[in-house]
């Protein structure tokens, strides 16, 4: 039955966000170009996250984070598939020809602030923030990549993660240690992966 009392702020917002999602899907269904479709998939993701965010409890926060993780992973995979399909292999020219970026110390300072802040935050959020700082640094200042170091970081983060899982299982009284270990592990893992994205920029080094 139609109940005027049910049309509170929450329902109206839900209706608006659903309308946005419908518009985005409509545009997606009419689009033929692949890169445009990739952009529209990102557009569809935003109202979908809005529907979750409108739940407005801790549950929403717990559901938005995996949604974002899946979204960024999906986008990375799809963009890589797109590049392979189109046969685009050459790396774009690195370095921004912007005075404030190239001549000043801004990239270093901002990258350091973001990385330190990300380490304080820890978890996936901190990994994203710290990784963003590293992406910016690698892109602005160039890089001498050392992939074995990053592989080592990923391996170490795996080990920390499994160890904290075992702590959860067998020594539940040290749960705080396990939470810190898991948060640090995810931080290391996400940061390593994101900075790998940054090193895909720039001239080929061979």
């Amino acid at each position: 039955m139609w109940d005027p009392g049910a049309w509170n702020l929450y329902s109206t917002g839900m209706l608006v966000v659903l309308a946005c999602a419908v518009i985005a899907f409509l545009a997606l269904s009419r689009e033929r170009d692949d890169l445009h479709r990739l952009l529209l998939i990102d557009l569809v993701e935003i109202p979908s996250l809005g529907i979750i965010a409108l739940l407005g409890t801790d549950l929403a926060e717990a559901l938005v984070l995996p949604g974002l993780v899946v979204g960024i992973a999906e986008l990375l995979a799809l963009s890589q598939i797109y590049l392979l399909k189109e046969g685009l292999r050459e790396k774009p020219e690195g370095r921004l020809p912007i005075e404030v970026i190239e001549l000043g110390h801004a990239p270093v300072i901002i990258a350091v602030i973001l990385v330190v802040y990300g380490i304080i935050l820890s978890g996936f959020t901190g990994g994203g923030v710290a990784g963003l700082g590293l992406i910016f640094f690698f892109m602005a200042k160039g890089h001498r990549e050392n992939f074995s170091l990053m592989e080592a970081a990923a391996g170490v983060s795996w080990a920390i993660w499994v160890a904290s899982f075992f702590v959860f299982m067998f020594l539940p009284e040290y749960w705080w240690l396990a939470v810190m270990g898991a948060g640090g592990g995810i931080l290391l893992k996400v940061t390593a992966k994101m900075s790998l994205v940054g090193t895909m920029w720039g001239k080929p080094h061979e």
Partner: protein
Amino acid sequence: MTPEYLLGLALLVIGTIASAFPRDKDYLTRLINLEIPGFGLLLVMLSYDEALALFTFAGVSVITTFVFVRVMEKRGIP
């Protein structure tokens, strides 16, 4: 009835329409228009006090922009 909530919904609608049916249909216009609903979602999350989600979304949306810029630079603008 918080102002953040209403503003966020308004930006979400404007941005979605602008990004779904942009005036010039090219990649750069769509990429910039995509940031408007992002800010709208940020405001909606703010009105529900979801600080951690807000943080993560801000970081991830910029990484998304970077991935798109990388693809576009490799492809070249048509």
